[in-house]
């Protein structure tokens, strides 16, 4: 008799999702699915809006990474105006995105995944949350909070508020950076870098303890896509896209975002509201690719930041030139935090940042444009079409988590298959399955979530849909 295990909701992620695991008659895993159960409709209700409102509207997609949407949208807006934005605006946008990467990665590593990593996957679910982490390791928890706070401060200094700043606009940005604000950022960088390097050290110490997880969390060949700058340097805004395969071979390089549809297709499955993007050249679902921190550190030649490069070299020596397991998303996230802080160190020395020329003014000069930013979770596409006056006629958004959808599904399957045997499973195993999803830091609804507070319920159904047993925490 076949069984179905449902994990609903999946906790400590941003958004609403559930996992269903179908067991065969012997009680082994037949099929797994990661369902995204919410529907937002942004692509529809933005139609008819003036395009210059789009950064403000689409930033509302997410409370964790509004800046990523803001920047991708503003960049698409630049394309519709057909302008080259002022250099200061370009650099300030980059500065804000670094703040965004730092705060979001800190949230993911310390607040969401920290409890699993530091307390253990099998630890008491009542304690396996941020509050348990604070009790067990107050210093680490405090560091995580401070790092996230710093990232948000950078966003607030530039945009006037931590969440949903309507700061980047088609043509540039609305406000510049004062000398005192620049100095405020500069003064905090050494402490933040020390926190990030300390966390990296802590994570590396856990390698032995989590060897089995490292070997079973999403270890399979896939393609990787991410943005790179000149010379293949790690890039998060304003670069070109690169796709590599699992051997490190560059399949696509120097891809201009406007041409993304030539490369990426989007498939739809009836059981999830999330679309399934794939690389066209390899077809669906073979063209599965991963985006986000792991993908970015895989596609880049260097981080373009000395301390981050040291960490990347060390990780590549340990895990191979193309780092395959999803567990390493955590490592990648910390390497990116270090790189972001180092890039900030370089940026704040650039006096262009203090310029008052911030916004190019133009009408509609192009009817279609694509804006891309590297969101903390991966490459984010905003594709707009407008009428001759500038009213939106078509919107296509490709969100990072969507691009990881195939890989997340595959990861869930891999963990379930390696831990569930003969219908036997416990809370620790189910938490590992959730943690496999969490490693991608999926942002599903894109709203801030009650951390570790939500009840998880696992239900076992037989083949006829009759409830056999239920575990809840």
């Amino acid at each position, binding site marked *: 008799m076949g069984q179905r295990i449902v994990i609903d909701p999946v906790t400590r992620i941003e958004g609403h999702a559930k996992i269903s695991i179908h067991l065969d008659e012997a009680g082994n895993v037949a099929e797994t699915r990661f369902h995204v159960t919410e529907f937002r409709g942004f692509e529809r209700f933005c139609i008819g809006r*003036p395009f210059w409102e789009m950064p403000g*509207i689409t930033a*509302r997609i997410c409370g964790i990474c509004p800046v990523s949407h803001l920047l991708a949208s503003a960049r698409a807006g630049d394309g519709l105006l057909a302008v080259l934005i002022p250099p200061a605006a370009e650099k300030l946008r980059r500065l804000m995105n670094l703040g965004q990467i730092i705060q979001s990665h800190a949230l993911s590593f310390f607040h969401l995944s920290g409890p699993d990593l530091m307390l253990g996957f099998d630890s008491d679910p009542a304690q396996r949350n941020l509050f348990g982490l604070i009790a067990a390791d107050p210093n680490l928890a405090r560091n995580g909070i401070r790092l996230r706070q710093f990232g948000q401060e950078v966003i607030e200094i530039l945009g006037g508020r931590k969440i949903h700043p309507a700061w980047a606009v088609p043509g540039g940005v609305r406000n510049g950076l004062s000398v005192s604000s620049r100095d405020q950022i500069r003064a905090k960088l050494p402490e933040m870098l020390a926190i990030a390097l300390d966390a990296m050290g802590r994570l590396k110490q856990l390698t032995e303890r989590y060897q089995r997880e490292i070997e079973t969390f999403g270890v399979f060949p896939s393609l990787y896509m991410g943005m790179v700058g000149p010379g293949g340097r790690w890039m998060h805004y304003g670069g070109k896209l690169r796709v590599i395969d699992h051997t490190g071979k560059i399949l696509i390089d120097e891809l201009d975002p406007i041409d993304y549809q030539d490369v990426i297709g989007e498939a739809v499955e009836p059981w999830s509201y999330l679309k399934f993007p794939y690389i066209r050249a390899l077809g669906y679902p073979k063209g599965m690719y991963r985006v986000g921190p792991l993908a970015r550190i895989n596609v880049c030649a260097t981080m373009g930041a000395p301390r981050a490069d040291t960490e990347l070299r060390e990780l590549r020596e340990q895990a191979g030139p193309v780092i395959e397991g999803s567990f390493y998303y955590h490592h990648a996230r910390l390497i990116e935090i270090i790189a972001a802080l180092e890039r900030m160190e370089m940026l704040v020395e650039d006096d262009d940042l203090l310029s008052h020329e911030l916004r190019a003014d133009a009408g509609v000069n192009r009817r279609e444009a694509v804006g891309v930013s590297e969101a903390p979770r991966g490459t984010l596409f905003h594709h707009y079409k407008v009428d001759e*006056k500038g009213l939106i006629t078509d919107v296509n958004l490709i969100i990072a988590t969507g691009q990881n959808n195939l890989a997340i599904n595959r990861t869930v399957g891999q963990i379930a298959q390696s831990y569930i045997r003969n219908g036997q499973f416990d809370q620790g195993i189910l938490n590992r399955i959730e943690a496999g999803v969490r490693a991608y830091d999926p942002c599903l609804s894109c709203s801030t979530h009650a951390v570790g507070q939500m009840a998880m319920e696992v239900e076992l159904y037989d083949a006829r849909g009759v409830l056999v047993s239920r575990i809840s925490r």
Partner: protein
Amino acid sequence: MAAKTLTIDGHLVSARPGETLLAAIREAGITIPTLCHLDGLSDVGACRLCLVEIEGQRRLQPACMTMVSEGMVVHTNTPRLQAYRRQIIELLFAERNHVCAVCVASGNCELQRLAGMVGMDHVRYEYLSPDCPVDISHARFGIDHNRCVLCTRCVRACDEIEGVHTWDVAGRGVDARVITDMNQPWGTSTTCTSCGKCLLACPTGAIFPRGVTVGERPHASERIALIVDARKQRW
């Protein structure tokens, strides 16, 4: 002519004959909500936010359309009035698509300010969510009917001050819309002088300069009265 003496919220107040109750209430230092009233324009009593209770009269009266009279006893802030005012604001929010979070006028909007003033923490009515178009065919301005409250301040500013009457209202009830000329795209209007007085008069983000983003549209309705006063002094 002798001044009129009346009682407003328990205070004896003297007012000039021919003065509106709204003016007398304001001169007494009392604030009551208004929306369709704008200093410098004629009054139409459309929004009903300035309704007051007058002793001896069963019906509530709009202060902007009621003239002061001797011995009037007026109450401006009774629980009944508070309930109606909140209800009116809620109905305005429910009737169109007002989304402050992404509105060009957020932070500079009379409707938003009024909602705070009357204590609107939620809307009890079902939203109509009408499908309202945005017209940005004009070279400098746009009109977003989602944010229009039909106060007709643009209509009066255009007619009474600029003198061209480009704006008017078409349709009835929930289908009513402000229109330009013969209900055609604003950019094709042959009467519009692009003076921008409708933009000054508009209390919300319904009329906006092209290209503004969230919270960027300034509120400058007081400049309508400035224009009127300046003209009086000149002529």
